[in-house]
């Protein structure tokens, strides 16, 4: 009788755990608290700015967003027109130069996808994704 509340609490906790375990198994490849971008491939606005002229900025957003505004000197490179835009990016790239790709916000996937294609397909080294994207850039440059 003495241990009844503790037992009840344990049983309730076990019940509560079940959906969590189910979700973790079912969604094992997209657990929300795991960032799809490794920490080493992210760069903050401050750090990227500190690299100065040694950076090629890449805007992965759609054309209309790039036309509205973008980081000064950034090149547009999105997957809508990848074949057309990639040669323009490659013409401006130099060995040893870092590449910082951004899209609109922390939650957007475009920068990660463009960065991945630059690394895998074009085999460009030192490609980073801007943490917080364009929103973070605007906040820091108000």
């Amino acid at each position, binding site marked *: 009788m003495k241990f009844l509340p503790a037992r009840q609490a344990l049983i309730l906790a076990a019940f509560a755990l079940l959906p969590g375990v189910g979700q973790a198994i079912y969604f094992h490849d997209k657990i929300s608290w795991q960032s799809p971008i490794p920490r080493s491939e992210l760069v903050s606005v401050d750090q990227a700015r500190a690299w100065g002229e040694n950076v090629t900025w890449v805007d992965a*957003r759609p054309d209309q967003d790039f036309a509205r505004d973008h980081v000064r000197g950034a090149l547009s490179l999105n*997957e809508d*027109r990848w*074949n057309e835009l*990639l*040669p323009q990016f490659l013409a401006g*790239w130099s*060995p040893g130069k870092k590449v910082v790709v951004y899209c609109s916000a922390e939650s957007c996937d475009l920068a990660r996808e463009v960065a991945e294609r630059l690394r895998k*397909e*074009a085999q460009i080294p030192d490609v980073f994704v801007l943490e917080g994207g364009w929103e973070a850039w605007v906040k820091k440059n108000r």
Partner: protein
Amino acid sequence: MKTHILAFTLSITVCFGARAELKFDKTELELHPTPADKQAVGHFTYLNTGKQPIHFKSVKASCGCTAAQSQKDEVKPGEKGEVTATFNIGDRTGTQVKTVTVETDDAANPKTVLTLRTIIPQQLEITPTFVFWKQGEKPDPKAITVKVGKEFTVNHIKVTSSSPDFQTKVEETGKGEFKIDIQPKETNSLLASTLTIQPEDSPKVFYATARITGAPTAPVAPAAPPAPVAPKAPTVPSSPAGQTH
């Protein structure tokens, strides 16, 4: 003790019983467009199983490349309908997963996330799509590997260099693979070339870039950027100056 467990089990049952009134047949769709398709369209069909009309508040796609819309604003009880998600393929490759978030005034389930998985067939996988030599570097040939996608058969490929300053040689290495050797005539000048790679009997065109790079602050003009690919009217340089295989 038994009463507590019974109460807990009942509460769980009641929770599951209060299901959404707007019921989607599937919340995840897998699409397999053909290489010629420019768009992939997913139809998420639903039924209002409740007794009250349901109103859509918003239908938003996770990416600018996907347009999503509901056919109507109000769904009457017993009425069917669909949310359409149109994914613009553009120059994307591989498996693309995009989501559409549907918000309604259905109190039991105000938000539903629909997932559109599009498997884009890749006729040729080119690695790397970019080769470069530093200015003054020995002009040794560099290799580009072309791998034919599993569901395709390609016996020959045609490679065209936009610049006569780069020579190319194509070799069939078997197992659906080709090797392109590309070599600049010299590396003292800042040169660039776009390689147009086209499978035999196919309108689809693929690209790779070769460049002689200079100092970090000395970019050269883009090497004849290719026009967007039109499946029925391939864009091949009208008078290729370089090598064709």
